[in-house]
């Protein structure tokens, strides 16, 4: 997860997607929907970065939906929550770049 945060912070969203896909293969069932959301978020940010605006909102909405599955009883709650905040900050940063 820390690598995912690093790659997102460095705006290497393709790598972030690959990392999240790897996490999805080994994570507990309860974390799977949230990890799927992280894949969508990284994909959305890649589209935003590259100016593929048509898919940005749909993918970001999928990420927003996935946050419903982020529960305090989840073993990795704090880390997942931190990750979602990083994603939101990076999105804002890209949006205000021009």
């Amino acid at each position, binding site marked *: 997860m820390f690598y995912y945060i690093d790659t997102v912070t460095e705006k290497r969203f393709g790598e972030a997607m690959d990392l999240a896909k790897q996490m999805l293969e080994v994570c507990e069932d309860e974390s799977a929907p949230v990890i799927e959301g992280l894949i969508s978020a990284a994909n959305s940010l890649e589209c935003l*970065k590259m*100016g593929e605006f048509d898919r940005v909102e749909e993918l970001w909405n999928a990420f927003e939906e996935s946050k419903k599955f982020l529960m305090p009883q989840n073993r990795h709650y704090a880390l997942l929550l931190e990750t979602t905040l990083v994603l939101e900050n990076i999105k804002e*940063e890209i*949006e*205000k*770049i*021009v």
Partner: protein
Amino acid sequence: MIVSFDELKLKDRYKIMSRSIIPRPIAWIVTEGKGVNVAPFSYFTGLSSEPPTLIVSIGHKKEGSPKDTLANIIATKKCTICSVTPQQLKQMHQSSQSLEYGQSEAKEFGIHTKQVVEDYPPMIVGSPTALFCSLYQTIDLKGSKTVPVILKIEKAYMDDTLTKEGFDIEFVPVGRVGKEYCICDKKIVP
């Protein structure tokens, strides 16, 4: 609702300003340093026709160093400001990414440039207009890392196919509204 800017976080100030000062024209600026640097800026407007001047505010990189555009303008005293059409939107947006100094956005994102005025940076191919500018003045915003730069227009390029007699040029420009772009294609004749 009345809000006091002194009490607002930076990102909220930006939100209010970027959604109130709309639509903003986009200055797609070409400068030369280690390579050809291309970057868009939307805190940009004309200042005066005499002297022919405009102003663009240039922020800083995340780590605090000046953006390449600013560093190049200060070093060379020159830049070329190109207008943006809807066909150029994607490349213009891509060129907003922060690359390593010396890494050329023009090369990285396949933005073609052409030299049209000697001794000035090239213009972007496909832009209907380009303003070839010299550095007139920088403004110190008292501790801010954002530097407003006043530029004097020395020469202008206008696409002949879009220009009528008397310098009337017609094209559909791209502007910035909040965090989105807008295509300004509806005109109202007063």
